[in-house]
């Protein structure tokens, strides 16, 4: 009951965010220099006549007043209609849905890697001693300081050309997924390990940890039963932003590994000034952000009984 009401209230509060995101993408289109009509007609054989231009302008609704265009855009967006790609003429929705599965597969695998290794390194950094402990404290910083494109190039150099374990390009099978996923996961592993490690260290200084130890609890029990759950809130928040960052990093990984996906689609759209596609991607990200945040908030409620829908933020 409580949870259902909570979900509904959170969904309701997501509406302004979505409207803001859509507004932003509409504004973006207005800001872009150059005329989309010119872009669409250029390259299509002989120079377009003014009549052709006028017809297209009307068809796109660009001859209407700005506020009409805005509400028209919103109405279309709610129906999932972002028009057609300026470059290919393909409907934006089908262009996106053609590559989305490949990106989802990559991001999901990378997310699993990030969580497993990020949490693993953080926990190991608390229980290990000596050089292993130092390693667990140092590795996250190195991961966070390494640019994704370089990771990708080094991985290709080592694992594709030297060891020939994994293919360097393409999207054929699981083997082709490994190197791009590692590329995406590395910085995320670093951030998760660092944030969770810091929270775990902070929780260790809490009085209830002393209470648990005074009951005779051992190190693992204190860590898993008392520290981890109390330390997890900042990490949950972080995992929420990580999902978006993984998709962003995919721009680079998909370029270097020549994989089809949302990242490359976005990059092409930017280089070609393909605004409708960009708007579609932006809207998709907005929806994703809302969904991920809802899941994150639900995790808060599951993890910490003090969190209620009323005071979920701050």
């Amino acid at each position, binding site marked *: 009951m409580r949870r259902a009401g909570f979900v509904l209230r959170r969904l309701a509060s997501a509406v302004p965010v979505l409207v803001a995101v859509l507004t932003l993408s509409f504004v973006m289109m207005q800001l872009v220099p150059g005329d989309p009509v010119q872009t669409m007609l250029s390259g299509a054989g002989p120079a377009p006549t003014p009549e052709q231009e006028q017809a297209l302008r009307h068809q796109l609704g660009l001859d209407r007043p700005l506020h009409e265009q805005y509400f028209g855009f919103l109405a279309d967006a709610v129906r999932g209609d972002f028009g057609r790609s300026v470059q290919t003429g393909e409907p934006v929705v089908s262009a996106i849905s053609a590559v989305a599965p490949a990106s989802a597969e990559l991001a999901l695998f990378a997310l699993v890697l990030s969580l497993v290794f990020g949490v693993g390194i953080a926990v190991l950094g608390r229980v290990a001693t000596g050089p292993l402990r130092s390693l667990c404290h140092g590795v996250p910083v190195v991961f966070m300081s390494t640019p994704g494109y370089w990771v990708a190039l080094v991985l290709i150099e080592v694992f594709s050309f030297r060891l020939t374990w994994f293919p360097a390009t393409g999207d054929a099978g699981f083997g082709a997924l490994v190197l791009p996923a590692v590329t995406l996961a590395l910085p995320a592993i670093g951030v998760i390990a660092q944030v969770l490690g810091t929270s775990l260290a902070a929780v260790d200084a809490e009085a*209830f940890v*002393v209470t648990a130890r*005074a009951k005779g609890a051992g190190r693992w029990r204190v860590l898993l039963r008392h520290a981890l759950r*109390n330390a997890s809130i900042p990490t949950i928040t972080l995992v929420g932003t990580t999902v978006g960052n993984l998709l962003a990093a995919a721009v680079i990984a998909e370029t270097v590994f020549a994989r089809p996906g949302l990242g490359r689609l976005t990059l092409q759209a930017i280089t070609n000034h393909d605004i409708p596609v960009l708007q579609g991607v932006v809207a998709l990200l907005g929806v994703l952000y809302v969904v991920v945040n809802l899941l994150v908030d639900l995790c808060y409620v599951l993890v*910490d*009984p003090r969190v209620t829908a009323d005071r979920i933020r701050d």
Partner: protein
Amino acid sequence: MSLLAVRGLRVSFAGGRVPALLGVDLTVRHGQTVAVVGESGSGKTTLARTVLGLLPSSARVLGGSVEFGGRNLLALGERGMRAVRGRSISLVPQDPTAALNPVVPVGAQVAEVLRVHGLASRRDARRRAVELLEVAGFPDAGVRARQYPHELSGGMRQRVLIAAALAGRPDLIVADEPTSALDPTVQRQVLDHLTELTRSSGTALVLITHDLGIAAERAEHVVVMADGEVVEEGPPARVLDAPDHPRTRRLVADAPSLNSTRLNSTLLGPSSAIGETLLDVQGLTKVFTSSRFGAARKRITAVADVAFTVARGETLALVGESGAGKSTVARLLVRLEDATAGRILFDGADLAALRGEELRRFRRRVQLVFQDPFTCLDPRYTAFDLIAEPLRAFGLDASPARVHELAEQVALPVGLLSRRPGELSGGQCQRVAIARAVAPGPDLLVCDEPASSLDISVQAQVLRLLVDLQASLGLSLVFISHDLAVVRQVADRVAVLQAGRIVETGPADQVLTAPDHPHTRALLSAVPHLPRREPA
């Protein structure tokens, strides 16, 4: 034969550079209650932590032994101590709010002891936890066991911790300041529970406290610690009635008590110069409204229809437990908050009418002394700058000579003026704060628990200082405190606050000896008594 025998225990921090215990002896017999008394820094908590093997990693045991039931605990190592903790020796920690895991139901936290030591199956442990909570004073233990710490009051949380401490049927419980974070009335209930349960189960209790009254009332044997050493021990009647050691004598003399009388200025003798009304508060009300976007509006009435007057040269004490609205009244009096309703007339003028520059000038006449001397001083400035700040702000003489004069007035060594708050002790910081407050020459000083975060001896010095300043500067005081024994020493008149309302007001002698209202009586009966008392 003794249960616990600590012999010549020496512990230090920071790799041996900061000594904490310098050869401490402590003996506890089966079923005995021993109080370890001392001020902060005396080493009493380090002693407790050593017995439980829970010293922080920066601490080293340099020598001595801790014999428990014939075994030397110091030789057991972490794995061995794990079997002892909770099973043979358990802990009742200081702050019940911080000491409970906020995300685990309290029943499970009691049951954990049984699970860790393999004393019960998962289901049995759960059932036993409910029983233990029942014994610890929860009539509805079955429901409570499933609740989380934030759903319980402070006193209830401490009773959960007592239940957890008793769960493993230990031979010894170490209680480290078990009630210092609780309100006086709750403090008494929790201590009653603790001592009764240990007595009925035959468990020995080491009660660590700074409060001599608690030690006197609860212990069969009192150990007084100072600077890492045991300076005196014996039965409470003997130690607290006829202390041998000068440190014990000072502790006893400085401990505030209801039997004491109002402190008089050492400079001018009894203050008698109580004049006409300076402050007249009428129907003062403060309602806080939470206005967070998206959340249901909540209205909390912190102060309701409060009225009192303060005459020139008089001290009015506002007394109440936490949440009674005392601090809100203080903030309203200096216009850090605006009242929802009611009037504050200061020297005939209505405070609510003051705006901007007018308000700033008014502040010269009413000053506030904060509860925590550390946080009320900006850590980035020296004591000199901090004392000079109000002088400069009001365009007064801010010369070094004037600042030195103020420092001398509050008995702060002039040599300390170049230090920052972080390099000063709590008592010294509070002197800086008081010097700041009296610097602009106010008529009224509002003191919000000015001594409650300080050690007993420092507290006594600060109270004496306030009384002296009042006499020499002709100040009126609004003195806010939860501690009736402290109030006894400074107040001319007392107003008792409960849930934002004044329930009783009158001359100190009358309110503190023949109270009318049941809440005042409850507060008074909660104050622990020292056995002796001749005026110091």
